[in-house]
C-alpha cells in the first residue's frame, strides 16, 4: 500500500476514495463529538480517480446507519477499520435498495414534511443515483438528495 500523506492512526476508521471535494459533506453527516480526532485529506492523488478525498477518524467505528449515508455521497468509498495500526476489516460501501429515515423528501408538499411520517426511499438507479419517495413518488438525482441528520440516540 502506498504511503498516505495523512498520518497513520492507531485505532479508528479510514474512509477512502471519497470523490474530491466531498469530504466536508461526509464529515457533516458523521455525528462527531468535540473530542474526536479527525484527519482530512483533500484532492489527494488517486489511482481510481484523478483526485480523491480521505478521512481518518481516531478511536471510532462507524454504525451501519452512517455507512448507508456515506454511500449516498461517496458510492465508491472504501471503509477500513484500523486496530493497532493494522487494517482489520476493509469494506466497500453499498447503497441499500430501500432507505428508511435517511433521506429528507425535498418535495414540500409531501406527507413526510407535513405529518410525523418516517421517510422511505427506493433506489431506482445507482450510476448516476436516482431515488424515489415511497409516499409522494417524486424522484431525486444526486444533487437533489438531502440526507437526514442521524438521530442523537443512535450515536455511541
Amino acid at each position: 500500500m502506498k504511503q498516505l500523506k495523512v498520518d497513520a492512526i492507531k485505532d479508528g476508521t479510514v474512509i477512502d476514495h471519497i470523490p474530491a471535494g466531498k469530504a466536508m459533506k461526509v464529515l457533516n453527516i458523521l455525528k462527531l463529538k468535540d473530542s474526536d480526532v479527525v484527519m482530512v485529506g483533500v484532492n489527494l492523488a488517486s489511482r481510481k480517480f484523478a483526485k480523491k478525498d480521505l478521512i481518518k477518524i481516531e478511536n471510532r467505528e462507524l454504525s451501519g446507519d452512517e455507512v448507508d449515508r456515506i454511500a449516498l455521497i461517496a458510492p465508491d468509498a472504501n471503509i477500513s477499520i484500523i486496530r493497532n495500526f493494522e487494517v482489520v476489516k476493509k469494506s466497500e460501501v453499498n447503497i441499500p435498495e430501500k432507505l428508511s429515515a435517511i433521506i429528507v423528501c425535498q418535495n414540500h408538499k409531501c406527507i413526510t414534511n407535513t405529518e410525523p411520517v418516517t421517510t422511505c426511499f427506493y433506489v431506482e438507479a445507482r450510476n448516476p443515483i436516482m431515488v424515489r419517495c415511497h409516499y409522494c413518488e417524486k424522484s431525486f438525482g444526486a444533487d437533489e438528495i438531502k440526507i437526514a441528520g442521524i438521530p442523537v440516540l443512535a450515536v455511541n
Partner: protein
Amino acid sequence: MKHLISIRDMTKKEILNFLNAAEKIEKSEMRPKFPDSIMSILFFEPSTRTRFSFETAMKKLSGKTITMSGSAGTSMEKGESFADTIKTISRYSNIMVIRSAIEGSVRYAAEIAGIPVINAGDGANQHPSQALLDLYSIKKTQAGIENKTIAIVGDLKYGRAVHSLVDAMSHFAPEFYFISPRHLRLPKKFRDELDRKKIKYNECAEIEEVIPALDIMYVTRIQRERFVDIEEYEKVKNSYVLKPEMLKNVKNNFKILHPLPRVNEIDCGVDVTPYAYYFDQAENGVYIRQAIISILLEGAQ
C-alpha cells in the same frame, strides 16, 4: 390488491383485471352488491365531479356512503391530526376514498387505516381511478388497448392525469405524440422513463399535422396560472384549441378524450361529431369505480 393508491404499484395483469371487471359490470354480466358496506369519502380538497362519481358507483352497488368535503367544521380544524382522522373514520366504514392536496397522504392513510383505501387524487401525484377510466375508454373504443397511437395535448408539465395516463399506457406498447407549448413539455424525468422502457414518442407544437395518424387524442386544459408571462399565455391558448374543421382526415376509430372539466380547448362544435367521447368517458368512470370498489371489498372479506 388491498388498496388503489398509484398506477406505479400496478402490474399489467392488475390493470386488465380492473378493466375486465368494469366491462362485465357495464354489460350486466356481473352484478356485485354490497348492501352492508359503508364507504367513507374524505375529500380534504373538494372535487364535486370525482365525489359524485364515487358516490354513484357505491350506490349502484347497493352500498352506503358517508361524505366529508373540505375540512371546515371537522375535527381536523379543531387540531386533530390527519392520522387520527383516518384511524377514526376507518372504524365507521368498510372502504375509504380520499382526496387531498398533500402528496403521498393517501398511501400513508392506507398504511394506518386497516380497511381498503382508494386514492381519489393526492396533489400533483396520482389519481389512479382517472387513469383506469381513461384506459377503459381507450380499450372500449379501440377494440383493444395494445399498439395504439395516442396524442396528448395541452399541459403536459403539470397535468397529473397526463402523467398517470403515460405511466398506465406504458404497459401496452403505445406510440405517443406529445403536443404542448414549449415550457409545458412533458418533464424530462418522464421522457427518460419512456426511453428506458423503449416506448416511442414524438414531441410537436402543432395539433393538425398529426391528427390523421391518431387512434386517440387526449386533450387537457392549459391553465392561465401556469404561466408567468400572461402575454405568452394569450399567444398559446388559441393554438391548442381543437375545432371541427381540423377533423377532416381522421381514422374511423379516432376518438377524442378529455378528463373534464373543459374550458375552451375543445370547441363545442366538436361535441356533435362521432369523434367526441368525453361525456361517455365520464360515464365510464362510474363503471370503473364500481369495479375498483367491488374488487377491493371482495379482497377485504
